[in-house]
C-alpha cells in the first residue's frame, strides 16, 4: 500500500538518457565497485541456479535398493558444497559492495547539495519551499540510490537468472521448457488484470483517506477550539461518516490487491502440475530422468521470480530517475555571482544608495529610483505598511539580493567589489523570524564568535536581558534547545544576544523586538541604544515608539520613500507618518 501512496514522477525518454549520462559521470569513482557488484551478482545467480541441477544429478544416482552409486553421488554433493559456498560468498560480497556504493553516493550527493545550498542565490531558496528542498536532499537521494543503483544490480541479476534458467531448463528438456515459456504470460496477464482493477480502488481509498486526514488535522489539530465550542459530538459524527466511507473503500482495495498472490500462485501451480505430467510421461521413454524432473519442478517453482523482479525494478528505476532529475535540478542551479575579494579595513559606516531599482518578480515593480545617503553613526528608521519594501532594503544592504540597477556603496566602495563575507560581517543583523539552531544556548549565542569566553557571553546576555531566563534553564548555557523549548520572545532575546556578542560596526534590526512585551522591549531598547552609539544602524519597526530617537526616519510606501526626516519634523508635517503615529496611540 505504501507504493500506491508514493508519488510517481514521469520523465520523457529523452530526458532519461540525459540524466543517466549525468549519473554515470557522477558515480565515476564507484565504477569499479559497480562492475564488481554485477560480476558477483552473476556468479552468485548462476551458481544458485546450477545447484538444483547438481542435486538432480545426485538424485539420479539414487535409483533403487542396491542401485545407489555412492561414489558419483558423493562427487555431486561435494560439487554442491563448493558451489553453495562460492555463491554465498559472492552474494555476500555483492551486498557489501552495494552497501558501500549506495551509501557513499548518497553521502556524496547530500554533501554536495549542502555545499551548493550555501552558494545558491536567495532568490532560488526563497522561491522554493524548505520542505521541497529537504525532500530533494533527503528523500530523493535515498530513492535514487536504492532504486537506481540497487535496481541496476537487481535488473542485471534478474536477466542473468532468466537466461540461465532457460538454458538450464532447455538442457534438461525442450518441450517442458517450451510449455513453461508459453504459459508464462498468463500469470502476467492475471497480475496485470488485478493490478488495474485494484488501482481504481486504491485511488478511491486514497481520496477517502485524504478527506479523513484533513478532518483529523482540522479537528484534532484544533481540539481546544472544538472543546471551547462544545463541538465534540458534531465532530465525532462528521468523523464517523468519513470513517465509514474509508472503511468501505479500504476493504475493497485491500481485498482486491491481495488477490494477486493467490492468483499467480494458482497459475504457477497449474504450470507445476503440467511439468510433472509431461515429465512423468517422458521419463519411461528415457527423454528425462527423475533427477531431471526434480530440477525442472524446482525451476517451475521459482521461474516467476525473475519476471516479477524485473518488472518491479523497472518501475522503481523510472521513479528513481525522476528523483535524480530533481536532485540534478538543484545541483545545477547557477550559484551566486562570483565573489569579489575587496576587504573593508576599519568600517566607518557610511552608506550610499543611489538610483536603486529592484523587484523580486520582474513583472511587478517594487523599489524604484531609491536614494539614501547615510553618514557614519546615523540611526535610520524605516517605517511603513506591510509589503512596502522595508525588508527588501535589508536584503539589498546585505547583498542577499543584487540590485537591478543603481549602486550601493559602503565607505565609498561599491558593494559588488567587496567580498560577501567582508560586507556581511560589517553588519550585525537581527530579524523578526527568529532562527534558533538545534544545539545548546551557548552554540546559539556564539554563532558569530565561536571562540567567545563564558564571561563575554554572560555580559552580552545581561545586556540583551536574556540572562534572566537563561539562568533559569535546567542546564543554563548548556541547555539543548529545540524548536519549542523556549517562547518566541525568548528566542528573539537570544538572537539579540547573538549580535550583542559580536559588536559589529553596523546594525540591522528588522522588527527585532516584535515578540517581546513592551516593558522588556524598553529595557532591550536601552541596550540597543548603547550599542548603536556611534554605529550606523538600520531599524525596521512596527511600533513607532521604538523609532522616535532615529536620526532619520524613512516612511516607505509601495517601494518609495514618501517622507523622510526626524520624528518631530514628520509629526509637524502632518502627513502619512503623523497619521500612522497618531492612529497607533488613539485611545477609544
Amino acid at each position: 500500500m505504501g507504493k500506491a501512496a508514493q508519488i510517481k514522477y514521469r520523465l520523457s525518454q529523452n530526458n532519461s538518457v540525459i540524466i543517466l549520462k549525468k549519473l554515470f559521470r557522477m558515480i565515476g569513482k564507484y565504477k569499479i565497485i559497480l562492475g564488481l557488484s554485477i560480476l558477483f551478482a552473476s556468479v552468485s545467480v548462476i551458481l544458485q541456479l546450477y545447484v538444483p541441477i547438481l542435486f538432480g544429478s545426485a538424485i539420479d544416482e539414487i535409483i533403487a535398493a542396491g542401485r545407489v552409486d555412492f561414489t558419483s553421488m558423493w562427487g555431486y554433493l561435494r560439487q554442491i558444497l563448493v558451489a553453495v559456498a562460492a555463491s554465498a560468498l559472492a552474494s555476500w560480497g555483492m551486498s557489501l559492495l552495494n552497501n558501500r556504493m549506495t551509501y557513499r553516493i548518497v553521502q556524496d550527493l547530500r554533501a554536495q547539495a549542502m555545499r551548493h545550498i550555501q552558494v545558491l542565490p536567495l532568490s532560488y531558496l526563497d522561491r522554493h519551499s524548505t520542505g521541497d528542498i529537504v525532500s530533494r536532499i533527503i528523500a530523493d537521494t535515498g530513492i535514487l540510490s536504492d532504486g537506481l543503483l540497487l535496481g541496476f544490480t537487481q535488473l542485471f541479476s534478474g536477466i542473468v537468472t532468466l537466461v540461465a534458467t532457460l538454458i538450464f531448463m532447455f538442457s534438461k528438456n525442450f518441450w517442458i521448457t517450451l510449455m513453461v515459456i508459453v504459459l508464462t504470460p498468463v500469470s502476467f496477464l492475471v497480475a496485470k488484470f488485478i493490478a488495474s482493477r485494484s488501482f481504481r480502488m486504491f485511488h478511491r481509498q486514497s481520496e477517502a483517506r485524504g478527506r479523513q486526514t484533513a478532518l483529523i488535522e482540522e479537528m484534532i489539530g484544533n481540539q481546544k477550539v472544538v472543546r471551547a465550542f462544545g463541538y465534540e459530538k458534531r465532530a465525532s459524527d462528521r468523523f464517523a461518516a468519513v470513517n465509514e466511507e474509508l472503511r468501505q473503500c479500504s476493504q475493497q482495495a485491500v481485498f482486491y490487491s491481495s488477490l494477486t498472490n493467490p492468483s499467480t500462485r494458482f497459475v504457477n501451480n497449474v504450470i507445476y502440475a503440467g511439468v510433472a505430467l509431461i515429465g512423468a510421461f517422458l521419463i519411461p521413454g528415457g527423454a528425462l530422468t527423475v533427477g531431471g524432473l526434480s530440477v525442472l519442478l524446482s525451476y517451475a517453482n521459482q521461474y516467476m521470480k525473475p519476471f516479477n523482479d524485473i518488472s518491479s525494478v523497472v518501475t522503481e528505476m523510472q521513479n528513481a530517475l525522476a528523483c535524480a532529475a530533481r536532485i540534478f535540478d538543484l545541483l545545477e542551479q547557477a550559484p551566486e555571482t562570483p565573489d569579489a575579494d575587496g576587504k573593508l579595513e576599519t568600517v566607518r559606516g557610511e552608506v550610499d544608495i543611489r538610483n536603486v531599482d529592484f523587484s523580486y518578480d520582474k513583472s511587478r515593480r517594487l523599489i524604484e529610483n531609491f536614494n539614501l545617503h547615510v553618514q557614519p553613526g546615523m540611526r535610520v528608521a524605516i517605517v511603513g505598511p506591510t509589503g512596502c519594501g522595508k525588508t527588501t532594503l535589508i536584503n539589498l544592504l546585505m547583498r542577499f539580493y543584487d540590485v537591478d540597477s543603481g549602486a550601493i556603496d559602503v565607505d565609498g566602495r561599491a558593494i559588488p567589489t567587496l567580498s560577501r563575507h567582508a560586507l556581511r560581517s560589517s553588519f550585525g543583523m537581527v530579524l523578526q523570524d527568529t532562527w534558533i539552531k538545534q544545539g545548546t544556548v551557548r552554540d546559539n549565542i556564539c554563532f558569530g564568535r565561536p571562540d567567545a569566553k563564558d564571561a563575554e557571553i554572560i555580559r552580552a546576555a545581561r545586556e540583551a536581558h536574556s540572562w534572566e531566563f537563561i539562568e533559569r534553564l535546567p542546564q543554563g548555557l548548556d541547555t539543548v534547545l529545540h524548536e519549542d523549548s523556549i517562547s518566541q520572545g525568548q528566542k528573539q532575546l537570544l538572537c539579540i544576544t547573538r549580535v550583542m556578542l559580536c559588536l559589529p560596526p553596523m546594525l540591522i534590526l528588522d522588527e527585532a523586538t516584535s515578540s517581546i512585551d513592551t516593558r522588556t522591549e524598553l529595557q532591550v531598547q536601552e541596550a540597543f541604544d548603547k550599542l548603536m552609539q556611534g554605529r550606523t544602524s538600520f531599524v525596521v519597526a512596527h511600533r513607532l515608539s521604538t523609532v522616535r530617537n532615529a536620526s532619520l526616519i524613512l516612511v516607505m510606501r509601495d517601494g518609495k520613500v514618501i517622507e523622510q526626516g526626524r520624528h518631530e519634523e514628520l509629526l509637524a508635517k502632518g502627513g502619512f507618518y503623523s497619521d500612522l503615529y497618531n492612529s497607533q496611540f488613539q485611545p477609544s
Partner: protein
Amino acid sequence: MKSLAVYLRRYRKESVLAPLFKLLEVVFDLLVPIVVAQMIDVGVENNDKPYILGCFLILLLMAAVGMGCSFTAQFFAAKASVGFAAALRQAMFDHVQTLSFTELDTLGSDTLITRLTDDVNQVQNGLNLGLRLLLRSPLIVFGAMLMAFTINVRCALVFAVAIPVLLAVTFTIMLVSIPLFKKAQAGLDRVTGLTRENLTGVRVIRAFCREAQSVSEFEVSNRTLTKLNEFVGRISALLNPLTYVLINLATVFLISNAAVQVNLGGMQQGQVVALYNYMLQIIVELIKLASLIITLNKSMACAERVAGVLQVKTSMAYPAESSDLADGDDAVQFQNVTFAYKGAGAPSLRNISFTVKKGQTVGIIGGTGSGKTTLVSLIPRFYDADAGRVLIDGQDVKSYTREALCEKIGVVQQKSVLFKGSIRDNLKWGDENAADGALWDALETAQAGDVVRDKPGQLDFKLEQGGKNLSGGQKQRLSIARALVKKPEILILDDSASALDFATDAALRKAIRGLGGGVTTFLVSQRIAGIRQADQILVLGNGSLAGCGTHEALMESCAIYREIYFSQFPEARAAYAQVGETPEGGKANG
C-alpha cells in the same frame, strides 16, 4: 495492547475464518510433493499413464481449491483488519473528544494526528498480514517437517535439526539489526534536521559568515549516518548467504541420508524428490516469515502507541447535572486561585483573587508569559485550579456540567482558527441552529459584516483549510463573530484583535460594549489602548495579581501598570515626571 482486542471482537468470526482458510490452502500446498512422488514412484515406475493423468488432475483440483481457500481467507482478513482499524480510529477520535486541555497539552496534537493516521494504518497492515500469513509460514515450515516424518523418519531428523538452526540464525540477525536500524533512523533524522536548519536559517548563516562551519557540521552527521548504515548493512547482508548455506548443507545431509535409505530399500526415488521439494518450500517460507516478523514488529510498536492514547484518561470529572443555579450579582469570582501547568516547575498563577460583576468589562494586561491566557482559561474550566476556587454566577465551576459551562461562555482564542467549509458552517460552530439573521448580527458586532458582504456567495463563501484564503485580521473578526453567535453570558477575547488596525479595534470594542443582555466581557491585551476604558483592569506580573482597578486608579497605585503605560506612551513619562501627577496621555491622546 490487549486493550485493542476489544475492537476486533466484532470481527471475531472473520479473524478465526481467515487463518482457518489459509490453513486449508497450506494443506493443499503440502500435499503437492506427495502427489508428485506418487506420480514418479507408482505412475512412472509402472508406466501407468491413466494413473499419472489422475495425479495431474488431482494437482489441478488442489490448485483450484487452494486458490478458492486463499481468496476466502483474503476476504475475511481484509474485512476484519479494515473493520478493526475503522473501529479503532473512531474510538480514538471519540476518546480525544473527552480529553481535557491538560491531556491535550501533554500529548500534543501532532502526536495525536500521527497516531490516528499513520499508526492506525500500520496496525491495520500488520493485522491483515498477520491474519493471512502468520499462520501460513510456520504451518508450511512445520507441516513440511511433519510430512517428511511420514515419508522417512531418519531423513526427517535432518529437518528437525535444520529448522531450529535456521530460525535461530534468522532471529539472531534480526534482533541484532533492529536496534541498529533505529539508530540509523535517528542519524537520518539528524541529517534531515540539519538540512532544514540550513535552509530556514540561510540569512542568519550568511549574515554571520558561517557557511563553511555549517557545511562541516553537516558533513560530520552525514558521515556518521553513512557509517551506521554501512554497519547495519554488513550485518543484515549476512542473512541471505547464511540461510542459503545452511539450507543447502541440510539438503546435502538429507540426500546422503536418503541414498543410504534407498540403498537399503527403505525408501523410493520419488520420495527423495518429495523430501527435496519440502526442503525448498521451507527456505522460501522462512524468508517470508522473517520479513513478516519485521512488519509485525513495527505494527506492534504502533499498536502500543495507539493503546497509549486510549489509556490516557481525562483528569477532569463533570457532574451529571448542574447544581441549582444561584443567581447572584457576581458573574465571575476567583478565590485565592493558584495554578501550575502539568510538568512545569513554577505555578503560572499565584493566589489570584478578584470579583467581576455581571455586565462588567474586564481588561487583563501584563508582560509575555505573565499568565494572562492562563487566567482566562480557568473560567471555562479548560484547566482546574490547583488551589482556590473559581466561581461562576456564585457557583463553583466544577458544579456545572460540561454542556452548561460551554453554553455560558464564549472564548475567542489567541490564534484564530477557522475550518474548511462555508462561512455559515464556521459561524454555526457557535450555535447549530442559528438563523442567518443571527449570524449577520454577530458579524456586524465583530466588524466583519463588510468582509463577508465582499465575498462571492457571502455566507456561502467557502473557506479553505485553516481559513487560508482570508487575511489575519479577517480571520480574527470571523472567529470573534463565531463566539458571538453563541450569545454567551461571558465573553472572553484573548488578545484576539491583535491583527486589526486601530480604528477597527476601537469600533469592535464599542460594538461589544453595546451588546445587550449584560454580557460580561474579558479583554486580554498587550495594548493599554485596548483596555484602558474597562470597568476593571487586572495587571499580571509573573503570575501574580500586581494590581486591580480602573486605569486612573492603577496609574496611581500600580508601578508595573505605569511602566507598561509609559513604554507605550513615552511622551507621557516626561509629563508625569514634570507634573508628578496622573497624566492624561498628553499629545498621544489627541
